[in-house]
């Protein structure tokens, strides 16, 4: 047990491989280390945005979305008739 509510059990031992089971309440997030590491790395990359590229991206976005979310404001009220 880890604390009061996290239970670790050995599911299987085969040769030099051990399979572990982890039972924890859903408020305790359980993730594989690779997932954590991958996200940590992605966060580290995200912390270094290339500013000129971001500017370009804003342009790309505007070119690719001729009608941004503002369309709600311009939607005719009598749309219901269709």
């Amino acid at each position, binding site marked *: 047990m880890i604390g009061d509510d996290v239970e670790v059990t050995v599911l299987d031992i085969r040769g030099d491989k051990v399979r572990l089971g982890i039972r924890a*309440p*859903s*408020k305790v*997030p359980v*993730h594989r280390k690779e*997932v*954590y590491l*991958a*996200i*940590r*790395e*992605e*966060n*580290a*990359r*995200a*912390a270094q*945005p*290339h*500013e000129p*590229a*971001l*500017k*370009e*991206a*804003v342009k*790309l*976005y*505007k070119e*690719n979305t001729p009608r*941004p*979310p503002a369309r709600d404001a311009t939607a005719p009220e009598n749309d219901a008739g269709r």
Partner: protein
Amino acid sequence: MDGAGCFHSAGGEPAAAGRDAGLVKLATARFGEVAAREDDIVFFPRGLLGFPDIARYAVIARPEDGPFRRLQAVERLDLSFVIADPLIFFPRYRLPAAAEQLRLIDLTVPADGIVAALFTVPRDPRLITANLQAPIVFNTRAHLAMQLILSAPEYTAAHRVFTKEEVPQGA
């Protein structure tokens, strides 16, 4: 909870005259000085993954950033992230229920929640990616936020934004 709606603009609105008290000036390393409203400062009880000790961030909306927002560390002026409403680029993106995890930020009323994705911006803008596996969830009422880790296998930490890529609907 949806990702629609996106934060107030920082200092953009003609805030009540003379009420400067609510503004925090930040001389950021990346985009110069900005004024963040107290209301736009959020607290991450656990920080972001890899940045566990940095808890206070300002959400900055600048007109020149288009759909993007900056998540600027208040105490580390050289640290900021690019975020945006993921639905802008991935309309079918859905968060699986993560109610238990969201207790960390006291989020019990879905209407109080806003989801944002972190974007990685490399030199080539066409290669920008969104992290759909570890989105940020804000409790707008409590000014708390956290980075969730989803176990939905269809979402990864790097989805291309500007190339055709099928993003399957979440569970």
